[in-house]
């Protein structure tokens, strides 16, 4: 059993089987494509039309305000979460293709990328509102495009097939043509996935970023290998190394550099 939150009615939650949920999502997408307000666009040259008129849930929340609680943010965060399970799975699949797991680093789905998007797309601010629209319209488009290309929806595609869809989106023009919206979707979601991933501890570790820990005494500056590297670089560029203040004070070479700017006459 999975839980589907109907986007524009966040308080209504219904329990559904996974199969039923997929059926429902397909039905919903068909519904939106046929809805009377939408000019019925049909696929041209194997490209699915973007569901411009698809209703996107609005969020009515005042935001966390100018003086939020820094410590008690709570399990659920400041605003009700409205991202559907279906969207979560779709985003996870997207994210895991962008940054696939390696031997030493977990996939985005493993470190909570779905929760990140749940928070993000449920927020009331402008950037997040744009993303909510992208997600709601975009995965309808992706399902249709997957269907045109492979006769399956996005979640059913194999890794190789899904990659082909992403390549189509990645390489398309964002300025014009039938793929400009999918191309933006790719760019925007990719940016968020990367940003969300590397701001986690696992992401930092993958970067090799050393997160500062409190120290007593003076900050030492670069040491060991890092110091050797920068020294070799500075010397190789024929710049002066000997007059630089290296490490904690005091500096013995302190007086070996001076800059004379005279009083203007």
């Amino acid at each position, binding site marked *: 059993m999975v839980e589907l939150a109907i986007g524009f009615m966040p308080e209504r939650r219904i329990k559904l089987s996974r199969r039923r949920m997929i059926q429902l999502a397909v039905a919903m997408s068909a519904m939106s494509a046929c809805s009377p307000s939408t000019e019925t666009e049909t696929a041209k040259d194997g490209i699915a039309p973007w569901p411009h008129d698809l209703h996107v849930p609005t969020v009515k929340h005042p935001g966390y305000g100018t003086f939020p609680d820094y410590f008690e*943010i709570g399990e659920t965060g400041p605003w009700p979460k409205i991202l559907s399970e279906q969207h979560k799975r779709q985003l996870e699949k997207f994210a895991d293709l*962008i940054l696939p797991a390696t031997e030493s*680093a977990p996939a985005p789905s493993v470190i909570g990328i779905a929760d990140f998007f749940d928070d993000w797309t449920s927020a009331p601010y402008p950037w997040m509102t744009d993303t909510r629209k992208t997600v709601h319209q975009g995965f309808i488009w992706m399902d249709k495009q997957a269907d045109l290309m492979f006769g399956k929806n996005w979640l059913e595609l194999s890794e190789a097939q899904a990659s082909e869809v992403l390549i189509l989106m990645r390489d398309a023009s964002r300025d014009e043509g039938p793929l400009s919206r999918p191309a933006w979707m790719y760019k925007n979601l990719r940016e968020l996935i990367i940003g969300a991933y*590397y701001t986690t501890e696992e992401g930092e570790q993958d970067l090799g970023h050393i997160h500062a820990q409190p120290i007593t005494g003076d900050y*030492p500056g670069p040491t060991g290998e890092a110091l050797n590297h*920068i020294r070799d670089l500075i010397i190789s560029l024929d710049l002066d190394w000997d007059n630089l203040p*290296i490490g904690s004070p005091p500096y013995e070479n302190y007086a070996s550099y001076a800059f004379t*700017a005279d009083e*203007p006459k």
Partner: protein
Amino acid sequence: MTNVVNEDYDVVIVGSGGGGGMAAYRLTSLGVKVCLVEQGPNQDPGEIPMFQRNDEAPLRAIGTPDKNWGYFDNGVCGTWLPDQPYASDEGVDFTWYRAQVVGGRTNHYARHSPRMGPYDFIQGDLDGLSPNWPVTYDEMKPYYDATEAVVGISGVNTGMYNHPGTPDDILQPPIAPRAYELLMMAAARKVGVPAFQRHNAILTRNLGDRMACFYATPCMRGCSIGAAFSSSTSLIPLANKTGKLTIVTRAKVCTVETGKDGKAIGVMFVDTQTGVEGRIKARAIVLAASACASAQILLTSGKNGSKDGLANSSGQVGRNLTDTPAVRVTGKFASLENRPRYDEFGANMDHIYMPWWGYEAQKKGLMDFPRGYHIEVGQGFRDAPELNAMQQYSDRNGLAFGPGLRDEIRRHWGSFVYLDGRGEMVANDKSYCALDADLKNKWGYPVLRFSFEWSDYEYNQIAHMQETFSTIIERAGGEVVSGLGAPKDVMSKPGGMVHEVGTTRMGTDPDITVCNPFGQTWDVDNLYVMDGGVLPTNPHKNPTLHIMALAYRNSENLAQRLKQGEI
């Protein structure tokens, strides 16, 4: 908070930032009974989220309309304060970045604290582009010393002309440069641009109750241990200790009230939570609500709503508004790709800078802009990754995905360094703030409208920065990847550097200035201004130290006049 404050005070100070905090400290330590009125809430320094990770906050802690500088940023700050809108003239996108919390914007400023030099005080006289300061460096020196002794400054003295040092017994040891800072120092020096460790309002040694920096937490969130100076952790506790200070919070001062004789008798405020009005009486009033906010209070305090406002016989309230022209030029360094990792965080803020060196060339007319600038240096892998700053690393090779992308991002992490120019603007007629004819704040009081224009002085200066920064980056083996192009397109937005000053400038001529050489308004004997508004010019040397040194000095003047019964 108290709505009606019945007690009589010697002085009411409006605003608890750099200027207001220093005034409260100095006045109370001289035995003056002070009531400090602040529109924002108090913040317990122990409640600062120093160690919270960005991924513990909503939206990875990035800036939003509610908190422009991020979820954990200290200061209840933003350009968008829902209750207090402001307007800009068409085509002017003025950013008025305000704080509303005890400590004001000092809670999260970047702590760069260079002194002004003798030349900065008289340059107007020499190039004729602005009035002189009504004080000289020699007169200000003891106040810089005293201010720095309480603020706490670490760094080195450059020994350069017009960059006066801090006495050895006050100056704390500097902070070791990071790897990329060493590279930029060496390259700058090689091309004839001076480079030194800079003066930061960050303790590297304990000072009183405040502890030395432990080099691990973002200073813009505030600093519970008081290593990073802020009015709220470093001045107000000292003022509190005197027993002479009362703080009233969440009280927005709307007007200064005057008696029949034209003297100020107190302030009128609204409780920002209930909207109820209140009054506080005092023998003297100090406005320190920040340059534009104090101008707004004066303009709103006009007799019977007169548009001229209070203390404005010169017509100069709100005029002479300047900000710091700035540009960022970023270099990409192949030689820094995949470089060995180490803890590059340091004291979070820049450890080095490049002071202005072109005084003589300018005097000789060899430069097409009249005032100086300095250079700040940033990036590397100093800060922890931020959600909206990863594209630089991930998009070098188009918008790739899949295996290999991780290696790519890791390779570029830490291989960018930017140079930030911070220049001096010359005040002009087109840059000012005034009351908007229609717009009102939540409580029905008029709000500001901004007009602003950079001139060729600033554009030419930006062009010079771009050329100089490119030279330094290239000499260091880097390739410039952003920040070039027409200055007007790439430079900072008006107000963007949050160094707005000049709106109630002080001087010796009452016809063209609002305050006398001690920050006392010419028109109202017992009304002082002690924030950035009084600065007659806006030297590129970041304003807060000068604001505080003047508040220190001018508070002594006020205390003395109170004591002598002149007020």
